[in-house]
């Protein structure tokens, strides 16, 4: 008896959906056992999660709040991953975007709100691109592995952020907390009333989704990205400027993460703190994969995953479960989905 693993000739999309559903079902089953062991009724726990994430106005709004940065980041990462460029640096690019937006918001407050907000988005976009540009150049010209450099750039960005909030940018009236002064009113993003949804960033995310869809289905550049990702040698043979594509997808994904950073500061936190991002840049990597590197898939994955995050918080608050249970819950669902992802691409058969 042995296992045989074989690549499927065609990854049927219908089977893919079925497998994903099965994965979620299995994860829920395993988690139900954990809940039971914790003395919590799993049915009640699940209904709480669903309610908290999707079926209450407040919960749904919170899900959208988390969806905004996750979607933006994941669209960008999907772009890079499609070209087989492994940008692990979205977190750092988000932080740099947030830093730039904060600086603009604090130092140009004499501008009218519309102009200031546009400038903050632009600043976030450019700062994210610039942060991604460094590893992109190293990769395109010197073949330095971008996994390592982008990851290390995250650590540097985090240190810059800490330096600023502990040092020169620290709020003099903040009772010594490591944080910048709050953004003035005209630097704050407009919200949907009664929620924390900063709809301008949501609109940018929607536009990005549309843009990447068109990019891949209609344009020469989208096609070149697919060729570079599919076979670099063939790309060179076709005369595609591979370095240009590498640079392009890297700074695009960096810029989008930077805009997510602007949204977080201008729409949610209104000031920089050392830990304002709960690791969106890393979560975005997972979502890009879960969404199959496809803008529509990424949208769905980002939305459901945001719901999971919100639902997990509710578990903690309402049911009094420890954070580790929530982490286990989120983690197990991911693990199952990623495992089943493999089954959609490969066939595993038991052979005698």
């Amino acid at each position: 008896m042995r296992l045989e693993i074989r690549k499927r000739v065609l990854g049927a999309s219908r089977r893919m959906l079925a497998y994903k559903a099965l994965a979620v079902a299995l994860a829920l089953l395993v988690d139900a056992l954990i809940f039971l062991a914790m003395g919590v009724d799993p049915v009640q726990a699940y209904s709480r999660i669903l309610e908290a994430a999707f079926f209450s106005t407040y919960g749904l709004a919170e899900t959208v709040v988390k969806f905004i940065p996750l979607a933006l980041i994941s669209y960008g990462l999907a772009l890079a991953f499609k070209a087989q460029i492994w940008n692990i640096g979205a977190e750092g690019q988000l932080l740099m975007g947030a830093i730039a937006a904060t600086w603009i918001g604090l130092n140009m407050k004499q501008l009218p709100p519309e102009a200031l907000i546009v400038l903050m988005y632009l600043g976030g976009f450019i700062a994210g691109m610039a942060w991604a540009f460094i590893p992109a150049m190293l990769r395109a010209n010197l073949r330095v592995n971008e996994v390592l450099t982008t990851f290390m750039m995250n650590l540097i960005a985090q240190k810059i952020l800490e330096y600023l909030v502990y040092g020169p940018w620290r709020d003099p009236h903040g009772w010594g907390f490591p944080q910048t002064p709050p953004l003035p009113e005209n630097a704050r993003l407009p919200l949907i009333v009664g929620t924390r949804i900063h709809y301008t960033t949501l609109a940018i995310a929607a536009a990005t989704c549309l843009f990447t869809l068109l990019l891949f289905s209609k344009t020469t550049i989208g096609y070149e990205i697919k060729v570079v990702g599919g076979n670099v040698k063939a790309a060179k043979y076709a005369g595609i400027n591979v370095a240009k594509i590498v640079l392009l997808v890297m700074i695009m994904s960096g810029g989008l993460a930077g805009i997510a950073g602007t949204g977080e500061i201008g729409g949610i936190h209104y000031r920089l703190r050392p830990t304002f991002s709960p690791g969106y840049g890393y979560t975005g990597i997972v979502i890009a994969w879960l969404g199959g590197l496809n803008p529509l898939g990424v949208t769905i994955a980002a939305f459901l995953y945001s719901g999971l995050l919100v639902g997990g918080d509710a578990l903690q608050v309402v049911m009094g479960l420890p954070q580790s249970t929530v982490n286990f819950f989120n983690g197990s669902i991911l693990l199952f989905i990623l495992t089943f992802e493999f089954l959609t691409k490969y066939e595993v058969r038991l052979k005698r």
Partner: protein
Amino acid sequence: MAEDVVLEARNITKFFPPNIYANRGVFFTLYRGEIHVLLGENGAGKTTFVKMLFGELKPDEGEIYVRGEKVEFNSPRDAIARKIWMIHQHFRLVENLTVAENVALGLASRLVFPGREVKPRLVELMEKYGLEVEPDTLVWQLSAGEKQRVEILKALYAGAEILILDEPTSILSPAERQRFFQILEELKRQGVSIIFITHKLDEALKGDRITVLRRGRVIATVEPSQVSEEELVKMMVGEDVRNLTLHLTRSKTTRKEKPVLKVKDVWIMGDRGIYAVKGVSLEVYEGEIVGIAGVAGNGQKELAEAIAGLRQVERGEILIAGVNVSNKNARFVAELGTAFIPEDRIGMGIVPDLSVLENFMLKLYYRREFTERKLLIRYDLLMRELEKAVKRYDIKIPSPHYPVRTLSGGNIQKLIIARELARKRRLIVALHPTYGLDVATTAAVRRILLDESMKGSAILLVSEDLEEIFELSDRIAVMHEGKIVGVFRREEANLEAIGRLMAGGKKEAVAEAPA
């Protein structure tokens, strides 16, 4: 003679999902001390079959008997225990170890590596079978023929009595090939039973018996004296390939006076950082086919890639239609009207996961006529081009939207050629264009090249297949160690002289054409 049967396969069937029967009801016997040839086109199921004899694959149906005893192999280890050994088409040697160490590796179920102990017995085997190789040489320094001898020594050292050789001659120069058949005869004389896989007729006829496979089935088992070459071809390709001219020859040269490609004293660095091409000069004229003969690894690939803009030129110049293209990029060269058929079809020629259409458009998508403002791709127009090409070159595709990796090797090659010829061209650089293709596709590809030259394209053809070179070329250049060591008009060339040059021999007094 039943006791002389050393290996027998009965009714072997092997199925590869979704729908391929690689072998269907194959019966096969091997007598002691015979050379039994397995003849068939690529994809006929030869390699699949012997892999089952060697325990690398398991048959879905049927039985295998070794010396009269029914066996079931779970891995090659079991087969080796029965004194069966297979030498793969691509050698499995550790390049950084010596010959003796490589032989010792095969027996490494011991704690201490028996690197030196093997030598006495190894030398003994070398003498007995005439397999001379210096035991202390590092394997990477050996020629292909010598590496093959090491593989055979490994087998003999492990005590093999049944030897399976998968396309053993494909990488040998003509001289080495001759030597190889002497070795086979010697092995046979010493009682080794040999299964010899080939798709070449002349080699098949050197065996004691020939079993012809076609599409996974045994067509016949015959003795060479009973059949003619034509009959063997018919068995190999079947009746459905009618009017197949195996031996195309050019009626007359179509060469015109204008040179399209001019290579002037070009030096090119290889991947290992040493010169792969050392001062080559060459011209190819409009309507002319120039064949470059040579054993792989003598600089042909590097030369072709430099012409196509895929490799740096260190010194000298390359002119296409009078334009200097040295160190220009691939698109610039392509836009001058250069078609390039790469050696590595899967590795360079296609993007396996993209669709047939997306692969077809690889060198068209950016052109003005297929885009709007160089940004939006007109997929409808490209689809029309693909449909034309599919019809014209008879490419079998399930759907233009299927991943190109679902196509067979022959159809992939046709698609690549169709893509390269879907644009205006004046120069075609073709690297091993028919390597590994079945007879029908090979003939089709050669036909296409001849047609193109008739229409005025200049063609530089790199091939290890001398038959192909002789069939197609107006002039034949021989490359050895990065240099052109001889150029002949086809009418004046002779196979022997070229073979000698390919192997690094001295040039005799042969009529040489002006370069």
